[in-house]
């Protein structure tokens, strides 16, 4: 059975329509249930004592004063936890050479970054635990601090992990063709250095976990704000020495993730270990300072890039030298080498060129570990690529749109393999660019810019094309040895009243997973979406799956839901055919009624069919299958990833006296394949764009030379607020993937991937007549004034 997507008037046509989210109505009434909203009998609270030093030997821990605080029950050191919890090593076999030392849930004898947990205080109230934590007396013997990225491999830089031999975590060089020869003979070679700042996700709900160990049952239950419940089940079982089947991870409402909540955090594993030791529920909720010092950071890169172009604007070669510093440990189990690896994979992505060299160098330092955060590596690769393309266009006197049209892969050239060896099934760069140019009325905007320039107002237009990796196969993590599922499953069940319940392995983080699944199941079976209840986020209930990451929920989880729904429909029609003495193929299900497929005439309600199957099965033919529960799984197999593409544009104004950038408007045209819910896709893109705009203009974690994090509050680490953000125009081109019947690719990260590059190019477009250029994010007033020569000290 397939869905005739080409016919918008087909019955049950919910896929492709804006349908309200089933969970939104309760969230606007404050009826969310986040981990911190839960209170269990005998629950206690844990607060972590954290290293105030970036690198130090722990020479003693005195817990007496802390234990004397009223309400404090226990204090745990790293050694206490290590007795029940094994350390982990975050490497993957396919990232050849990646190394990282064993990491404990609580540091045992050495702290390697400011914020690393060194002790845990458990009390009957959080306030008492905090009071106790302040009184744990830890003796530290300071060790040399490795902070700077670019000198991390110098001979005179202290080696952070002596056993590792040096500070190099990972290096990968990819070479295609003869870049040196092309660069030597090209008409023009343009080079530039780029920096992207250290960011963090700033989820409004801090990391949260509540764990209970039921010794008589031998079962550990974790209520966890996570993107990947099954991965966490595996991790907790492995490191606490429990059978996987005796660990249950439940993920209710999650207050924002963006990749932050897909990783294994030492304090969260320690909380599970403490629950196991104490045999009672233990809750850990990070505070805001802990969020800044211990949520993963990301995007701390410095890149030297070169582009070679011919006189007519043909792009001949890219040469990329990327460096990134990942903090003190590679993060478990996805590793911290993926981001740099993505930069190598993605640079030059939209363009049809031949000679490519890219290297990433990933080093250790005494800072918070970095790992995958929304649009992993994309904002960096897109900024470098699109920045270089614009600079080359300026050198050649070409229009930024024209040079892109000259070089983007033709829309009819697919399938094609890029110089980075990425395989593209089907993209739409030119159609997307055409749509963008029309949406923004490019020529009128250029005229407006010229008019403004006459009045001394400096406006700029920035364009950024991009590709985005979605729907990952086991080539992302599984082949490297990580127990992270690329497959996902869905069970769809019809209950006696004809209503449906769908249980899915993908999770809801606010992006609209429940709505998306309800639409697919509703169309697949033939009922209104309101007749479908969705259950996600419980490892003991849902099919095993990967969860929510790498923009896979709709493309992978959605296809599993569609196949399960179609299977249930077939099972229902088999029963209906027997009841109606008709051929199953002559029947259909529409709006919850079994109908004649040809005439649409009602024959039998699902409620009546349910009544017969569940309560009067004796009246059905003996041996008739009546399996009103169907499960299907889906995994991609033809391509390692389903790439999407898109293009963004920014229009902004630079105040050359203050250096302040005002965003006037933003556009994005995106091709995420089949769109299941237009409104949800648009809002994912808008939210993603704003997250990217934050990186372009505001967000930067600062450390001093001693490895102290300097801006660990929301007053000091600036995030986008409503007042500075523009309205955004979103457009679409749809090139469905042929890997699935649904045809959906991911849409959750495209906005973040392209926005920083668009802003950078727009600022430089505004500054170019003044002879200034910026390439170091965020583009703060100070950096812009320095580029203009207005600040020189």
């Amino acid at each position, binding site marked *: 059975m397939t869905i005739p997507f080409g016919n918008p008037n087909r019955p049950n046509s919910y896929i492709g329509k804006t349908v309200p989210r089933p969970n939104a109505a309760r969230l606007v009434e*404050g009826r*969310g249930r986040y981990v*911190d909203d839960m209170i269990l009998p005998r629950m206690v609270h844990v607060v972590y004592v954290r290293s105030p030093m970036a690198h130090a030997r722990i020479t003693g821990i005195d817990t007496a004063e802390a234990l004397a605080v009223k309400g404090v029950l226990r204090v745990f050191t790293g050694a206490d936890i290590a007795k029940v919890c094994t350390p982990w090593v975050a490497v993957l076999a396919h990232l050849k050479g990646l190394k990282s030392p064993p990491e404990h849930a609580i540091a045992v004898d050495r702290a390697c970054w400011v914020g690393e947990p060194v002790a845990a205080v458990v009390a009957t109230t959080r306030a008492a635990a905090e009071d106790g934590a302040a009184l744990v007396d830890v003796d530290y013997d300071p060790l040399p601090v490795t902070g700077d990225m670019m000198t991390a491999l110098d001979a005179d830089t202290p080696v952070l992990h002596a056993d590792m031999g040096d500070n190099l975590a990972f290096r990968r060089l990819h070479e295609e063709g003869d870049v040196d020869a092309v660069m030597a003979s090209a008409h023009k070679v343009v080079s530039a250095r780029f920096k992207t700042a250290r960011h963090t996700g700033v989820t*409004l709900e801090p990391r949260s976990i509540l764990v209970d160990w039921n010794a008589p049952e031998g079962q550990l239950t974790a209520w966890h704000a996570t993107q990947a419940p099954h991965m966490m089940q595996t991790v907790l079982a492995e490191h606490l020495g429990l059978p996987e089947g005796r660990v249950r991870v439940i993920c209710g409402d999650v207050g924002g993730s963006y990749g932050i909540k897909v990783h294994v955090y030492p304090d969260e594993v320690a909380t599970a270990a403490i629950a196991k030791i104490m045999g009672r529920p233990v809750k850990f909720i990070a505070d805001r300072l802990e969020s800044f010092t211990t949520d993963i950071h990301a995007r701390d890169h410095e890149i030297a890039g070169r582009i070679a172009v011919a006189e007519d604007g043909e792009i001949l070669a890219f040469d990329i030298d990327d460096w990134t510093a990942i903090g003190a440990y590679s993060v478990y189990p996805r590793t911290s080498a993926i981001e740099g690896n993505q930069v190598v994979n993605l640079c030059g992505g939209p363009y049809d060129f031949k000679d490519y060299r890219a290297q990433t160098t990933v080093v250790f330092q005494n800072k918070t570990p970095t790992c995958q955060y929304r649009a992993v590596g994309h904002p960096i690769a897109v900024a470098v690529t699109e920045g270089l393309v614009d600079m080359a266009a300026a050198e050649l006197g070409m229009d930024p749109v024209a040079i892109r049209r000259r070089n983007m892969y033709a829309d009819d050239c697919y399938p094609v393999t890029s110089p980075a060896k990425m395989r593209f099934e089907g993209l739409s760069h030119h159609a997307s660019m055409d749509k963008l140019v029309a949406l923004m009325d490019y020529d009128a905007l250029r005229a407006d810019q010229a008019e403004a320039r006459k009045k001394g107002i400096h406006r700029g237009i920035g364009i950024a094309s991009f590709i985005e990796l979605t729907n990952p196969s086991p080539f992302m993590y599984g082949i490297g040895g990580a127990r992270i599922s690329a497959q996902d499953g869905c069970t769809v069940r019809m209950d006696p009243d004809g209503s449906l319940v769908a249980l899915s392995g993908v999770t809801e983080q606010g*992006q*609209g997973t429940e709505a998306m699944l309800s639409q697919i199941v509703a169309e697949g079976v033939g009922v209104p979406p309101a007749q479908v209840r969705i259950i996600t986020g419980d490892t003991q209930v849902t099919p095993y799956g990967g969860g929510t990451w790498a923009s896979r929920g709709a493309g992978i989880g959605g296809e599993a839901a569609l196949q399960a729904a179609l299977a249930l429909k077939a099972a229902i029609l088999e029963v209906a055919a027997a009841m109606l003495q008709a051929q199953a193929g002559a029947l259909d299900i529409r709006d919850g009624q079994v109908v004649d497929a040809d005439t649409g005439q009602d024959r039998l309600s699902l409620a009546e069919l349910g009544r017969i199957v569940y309560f009067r099965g004796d009246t059905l033919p003996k041996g008739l299958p009546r399996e009103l529960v169907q499960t299907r799984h889906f995994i991609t197999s033809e391509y390692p990833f389903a790439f999407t593409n898109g293009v963004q544009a920014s229009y902004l104004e630079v105040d050359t006296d203050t250096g302040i950038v005002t965003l006037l408007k933003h556009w994005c045209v995106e091709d995420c394949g089949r769109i299941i819910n237009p*409104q949800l896709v648009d809002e994912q893109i808008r*939210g993603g764009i704003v997250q990217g705009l934050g990186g372009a203009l505001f967000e930067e974690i600062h450390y001093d030379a001693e490895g102290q994090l300097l801006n660990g509050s*929301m007053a000091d680490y600036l995030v986008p607020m*409503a007042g500075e953000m523009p309205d955004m125009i979103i457009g679409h081109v749809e090139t469905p993937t042929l890997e699935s019947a649904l045809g959906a690719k991911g849409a959750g990260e495209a906005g973040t991937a392209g926005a920083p590059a668009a802003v950078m190019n727009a600022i430089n477009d505004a500054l170019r007549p003044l002879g200034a250029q910026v390439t170091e994010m965020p583009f703060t007033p100070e950096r812009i004034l320095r580029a203009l020569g207005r600040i020189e000290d």
Partner: protein
Amino acid sequence: MTDVFRDKIDIALSVNGEPVEARVPAGRHLIDFLRLDLGLTGAHASCEHGVCGACTVRVDGDAVRGCLMLAAQADGAEVWTIEGLSDSGAIRDLQDAFVARNALQCGFCTPGMLVACADLLTRDAVPARDEIREHLSGNYCRCTGYEAIVDAVESVAKARRGAA
């Protein structure tokens, strides 16, 4: 302990239209009192120093940061949280507009955001988009990018004006 340094305070206030009497630790923040003592978990503690707006509740008619106000300071006050504002129907149109426009994703900021939006609409019946953005600049939302929220508020303002 003398009266000056007492660490427990007796308070009497109205929460969501119902009388509440309690003895609270002097250092108890209003948001913790509402969440932990009264079980009103709609508003959230997040940045804990008045920047993000997730804890915004209505106190004596004003939108107030629950993390910057002590429970003891609410003695005698009239407090409304998202639960009470939902039950009374006072912001039903705003809530419906949020759902229709998908002006929320994870929902963690939403209760505070709604109180801030409602506050604006009582002060200014016809706010321009930049005024809406300015008024909401103390409420952080990482998910939506704000545009849908601005749209929702604008649509409610227009609808209320049309109905008036």
